[in-house]
């Protein structure tokens, strides 16, 4: 086991499963880049039923709203709603349809993270999902969150930034989360009939967060222009993508964005997004984010510049970014400088103990879902970031006192639940390899049980950082 093998598994992967550091050690960079071909693996539901596509979920969301309306009507005794509507069984009642969909997706996503043999690919899936944040803070998103990652992110992790950006913009989750499906061109056919109009939310965040960055060179007028170009993009029940373009809502053009004039219609919006994807400011924004993700909160300027150059010169090929960051010596610094975010931390712990360790599939599913509550206590819920900016990526956001105590308590619980019948020292050797420090080793050696030793391993500084 080499130090570079351990860094590959922890800093670029999701934490080592037993035997993984040994496998990565012969050629750590080759091991990482070898995982980056084609789409990322898809999560598999433990009940064997395939997940629904976006179009089917749009229909499910509609069903959900109808049921909610009917129940409301019943509660209010026909004040406004439907009289004598059949009371839906509690199991399928409102809330449950969204929650059930969300929990099933997240359970499967956790399980994939715990077991995948392409952990670098999975890491990038999560990086991009957090970059293009959608959030269940808007409750409607619960229905679409898992699908968003399955259909808009995973197929594109080795494609171009542009491909992913289009998939994201055209996904119902993004349309709904940032209100674009409600946005109507004031001078469009629909707009002049109804007293409805523009919503700037997606237009703004598309530039501020997803592409150019806040200092990327755009004005309030550009936000309005981008919003106009996006009018008519919306949610469509009845085709697999769940997406449609409504010409009657589209603001007539031409529209000038950042000094360039675009024609009205579908083509105008597409051309504008393409230009944003290819803008040098976008390259810089993505480069800064990726360098900070893998190197440190304040990465070297050279590292950012190299990523930016790779982005520009490859035309936004994401694989070129992965080659660049994996090839950057600064990313292989043996100091562990980034605190793992809660989902990453729980994932690394479950990988170290070799989850699921013989549990039957039903219990596996239950356990993976239960862990959602654990990460919640530590301050992170998948697809529930407080704002479109996503979950914080800086280390300091996760090293504060309260979150730390939550991790320690959780580590203790895991030790008690999973510690019997294992050798914690062996888990530590296989899991951290050369990253395991002498202090942790000696404190573990004095533990009163294997369970306590495992808990101490999971609580140790070298396990909390990567």
């Amino acid at each position, binding site marked *: 086991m080499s130090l570079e093998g351990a860094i590959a598994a922890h800093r670029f992967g999701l934490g080592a499963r037993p035997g993984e550091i040994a496998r990565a050690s012969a050629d750590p960079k080759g091991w990482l880049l070898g995982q980056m071909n084609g789409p990322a693996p898809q999560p598999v539901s433990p009940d064997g039923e395939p997940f629904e596509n976006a179009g089917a979920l749009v229909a499910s969301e509609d069903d959900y709203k109808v049921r909610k309306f009917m129940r409301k009507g019943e509660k209010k005794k026909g004040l406004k709603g439907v009289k004598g509507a059949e009371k839906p069984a509690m199991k399928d009642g409102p809330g449950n349809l969204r929650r059930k969909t969300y929990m099933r997706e997240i359970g499967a996503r956790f399980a994939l993270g715990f077991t995948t043999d392409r952990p670098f690919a999975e890491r990038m899936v999560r990086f991009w999902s957090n970059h293009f944040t959608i959030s269940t803070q808007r409750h409607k998103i619960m229905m679409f969150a898992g699908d968003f990652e399955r259909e808009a992110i995973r197929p594109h992790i080795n494609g171009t930034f542009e491909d992913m950006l289009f998939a994201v913009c055209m996904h119902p989750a993004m349309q709904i989360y940032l209100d674009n499906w409600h946005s109507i061109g004031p001078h469009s056919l629909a707009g002049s009939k109804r007293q409805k109009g523009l*919503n700037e*939310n997606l237009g703004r965040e598309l530039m501020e967060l997803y592409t150019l960055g*806040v200092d990327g060179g755009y004005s309030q007028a550009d*936000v309005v222009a981008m919003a106009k170009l996006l009018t008519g993009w919306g949610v469509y029940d009845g085709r697999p993508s769940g997406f449609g373009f409504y010409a009657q809502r589209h603001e007539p053009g031409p529209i000038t964005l950042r000094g360039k004039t675009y024609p009205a219609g579908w083509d105008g919006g597409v051309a504008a997004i393409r230009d944003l994807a290819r803008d040098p400011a976008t390259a810089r924004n993505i480069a800064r984010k990726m360098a900070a993700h893998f190197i440190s909160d304040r990465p070297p300027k050279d590292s950012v510049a190299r990523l930016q150059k790779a982005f520009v010169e490859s035309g936004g090929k994401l694989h070129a970014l992965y080659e660049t960051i994996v090839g950057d010596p600064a990313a292989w610094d043996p100091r562990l400088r980034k605190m793992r975010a809660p989902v990453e931390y729980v994932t690394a712990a479950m990988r170290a103990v070799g989850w699921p360790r013989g549990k039957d599939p039903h219990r596996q599913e239950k356990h993976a879902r239960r862990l959602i509550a654990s990460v*919640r206590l530590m301050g992170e819920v998948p697809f529930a970031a407080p704002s479109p900016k996503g979950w914080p990526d800086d280390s300091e*956001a996760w090293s504060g006192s*309260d979150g730390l105590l939550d991790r*320690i308590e959780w580590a*203790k619980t895991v030790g008690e639940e999973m510690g019997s019948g294992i050798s914690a020292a062996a888990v530590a050797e296989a899991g951290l390899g050369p990253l395991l420090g002498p202090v942790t080793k000696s404190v573990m050696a004095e533990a009163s049980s294997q369970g306590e030793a495992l808990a101490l391993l999971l609580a140790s*500084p070298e396990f909390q950082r990567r």
Partner: protein
Amino acid sequence: MTTRREILRTMTAAGALALWDAPLRVAFANVATERRLVVVILRGALDGLAAVPPHGDKDYAAMRGQLALDASGDAGLHDLDGFFGLNPGFAGVKAMYDAKEAVLFHNICSPYRDRSHFEGQNCLETGGASPHVFNDGWLNRALAPMGLDNGTGAVAIEQSPPLLLAGKAKATSWMPAAMPEPETAFLKKVRALYAGDPELGASLESALNLQNEAMEMSDDPGAKNPKLKASYGNLVPLFRGAGKLLASANGPRVAVLDASGWDTHVGEGAGSGALARRLQALDRGLDALKASLGSHWRKTAVLMATEFGRTVRPNGSGGTDHGTGGAAFLLGGAVAGGKVRAEWVGLKPSVLKDGRDQPARTDLRALFMGVLADHMGVSQAALRTTIFPDSGNVSPMKGLIRA
């Protein structure tokens, strides 16, 4: 008593609640004074014209359209002085106003003039003239001048302190839900693990200190677990927890709460919908804060501010987009209240910034400075040199605090 480990063991049940949990955080700081200062960050850009509607302005009804509020009906606004009013959800704030314990501000904003939430919040919290000038919070810089240099530290009731309280003066973090067991042999061993790690070591120590204090003061079984119980609509457990900590003799003297849910782009519901309900939840939280502070309320000032206001006219979705000027609030027994302080210029299209936003006529930092100076005894020199060094000719507001 529900222990933390029991919580962790019943994770399935907790998961159900967790998904609906409130995005709200609280932070505290220990101060050697009897005065209490609470800062509530209203993250997401609160619509000031819905919270403190200027219903007597002649352009108000026409400009606000479907979002205009009036005093009639069940969802009627609370009139203050025939010109300004309070949102229907603000019954408790109205009572404070009547008791001369509330000052309302209008046409107020941080110096930030663009419309990004994240930059706006950065300005609000760092106190800089523009975003990213400082990498610490103005409240953190004010801790030493307020007499916090005693090393007991400040506290954030969150995973880590918000930027407002982050910086050189070390602040710890604590969340009322996370009531761990008292120190065990296991924690001693974890201490040994962190002996060589200054960051995690210090983090652990400050967390443990706070836990002890919290365990001693907590007597309400319902309050032991607000992190799990607090729903999006219920801010009471966190505000009540904040009040209890502030009321304890050796507890913190400064608290930061962080409430979001104001980014009303769609279906704003200013009178009886989503925003009114959210304001009501905040109102109930404030009432709970007041109640749990008991007699300390009369030594308390509560400052509430948001990163910027919202557009005057409704957008196409029955909501409002990011704007500039807006409202702010100063509440508490220590406050010289019962008035609205605003350089009001009306709502005619010609006075609006870029033809769309309420203009900003008062710098929020003048309010912050006035409270720090007159309530917490911070010197002019400290305000000028360390807390708001690039505040130029902004001067502290006078007459905010009861003599």
